């Protein structure tokens, strides 16, 4: 009897934790999001790849994305004033995809709306950078 209660309690806890994790950073319906880059890998055409902290590769620590204007930019607090506008934005089946080109670098961002997880790739001549991070909705002003 006691064992059943323990199992039932465990299942309940896992359900609560798992449920909240899935709901965390739900971007559904958000028009502005804030993304943070956690890990980056840079690969050169020779096959050498190195994992590094994003800011060591000049990837902004935080990127604000306006999903209406397709604008990606650094936060005002960073003092960096860097921005670019994506050429395309598609939002379907719970996925957000942004693609563009800037200074000879092509970029693609893939964001899962339900979890807020970010996967991005930047490709340039002879090299590619893969970036992973997470996004959260920005409350409207």
């Amino acid at each position, binding site marked *: 009897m006691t064992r059943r209660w323990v199992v039932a309690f465990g299942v309940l806890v896992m359900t609560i934790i798992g449920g909240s994790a899935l709901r965390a950073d739900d971007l559904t319906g958000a028009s502005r999001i804030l993304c943070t880059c956690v890990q980056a890998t*840079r690969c050169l055409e020779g096959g050498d790849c190195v994992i590094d902290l994003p800011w060591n590769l000049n990837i902004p620590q935080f990127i604000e994305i306006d999903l209406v204007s397709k604008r*990606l930019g650094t936060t005002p607090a960073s003092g960096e004033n860097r921005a670019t506008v994506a050429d395309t934005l598609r939002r379907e089946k719970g996925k957000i995809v942004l693609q563009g080109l800037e200074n000879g*670098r092509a970029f693609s961002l893939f964001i899962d709306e339900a979890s807020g997880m970010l996967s991005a790739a930047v490709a340039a001549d002879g090299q590619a950078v893969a970036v992973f991070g997470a996004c959260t909705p920005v409350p409207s002003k």
Partner: protein
Amino acid sequence: MKRTIMLKLAVLLLAGGAALVQAVLAQQPTGEKTLAATMNVYVFPTKGQKPEQQSQDEAACYTFAVQNTGTDPFQLQKQSQTQAQQTAQQKEQAKQAGAGAGASGAVKGAAAGALIGEIASDDAGKGAAYGAAAGVIAGRRRAHAAQGQATAQAEQQGAQAQQATAQQLDNFKKAFSVCLEAKNYMVKF
């Protein structure tokens, strides 16, 4: 007759009491710090020297110690205060320099402007070894590191100066003590 004896006894007791009180008061500290006491050196006259004599002996030994060690504790104290101020100033300067570097980094970032185009950019030497990418954040990190280094250097210099001052003071106290011991005082510091 008995009354006269009692009176004489009373007078004698009073006189003795007064003398005792005077003797005790003479041994009590006056509240003024002696020269040795200001340096946390404890001096006891083993031959019953009077305070005036002790004061003279301490002054003589102070001069002796200054001449023999080349150190004047009161000058040292002033130097120590000046050094502490200099250390604080150097630390402040390092802090301001770091802030300046951050500002220039921000200006550089404002001029660069590209969000994606700057990622992993090593235009200074294409194909250069990994780590050549120089960015605003990297610049800011370097500035912070330099600031930390300058602050640590200032702190180290301050600590070294303090250590040197303590050593000089210790030498002075040794010379001062030797002199006073020769004049029949027990000395501890």
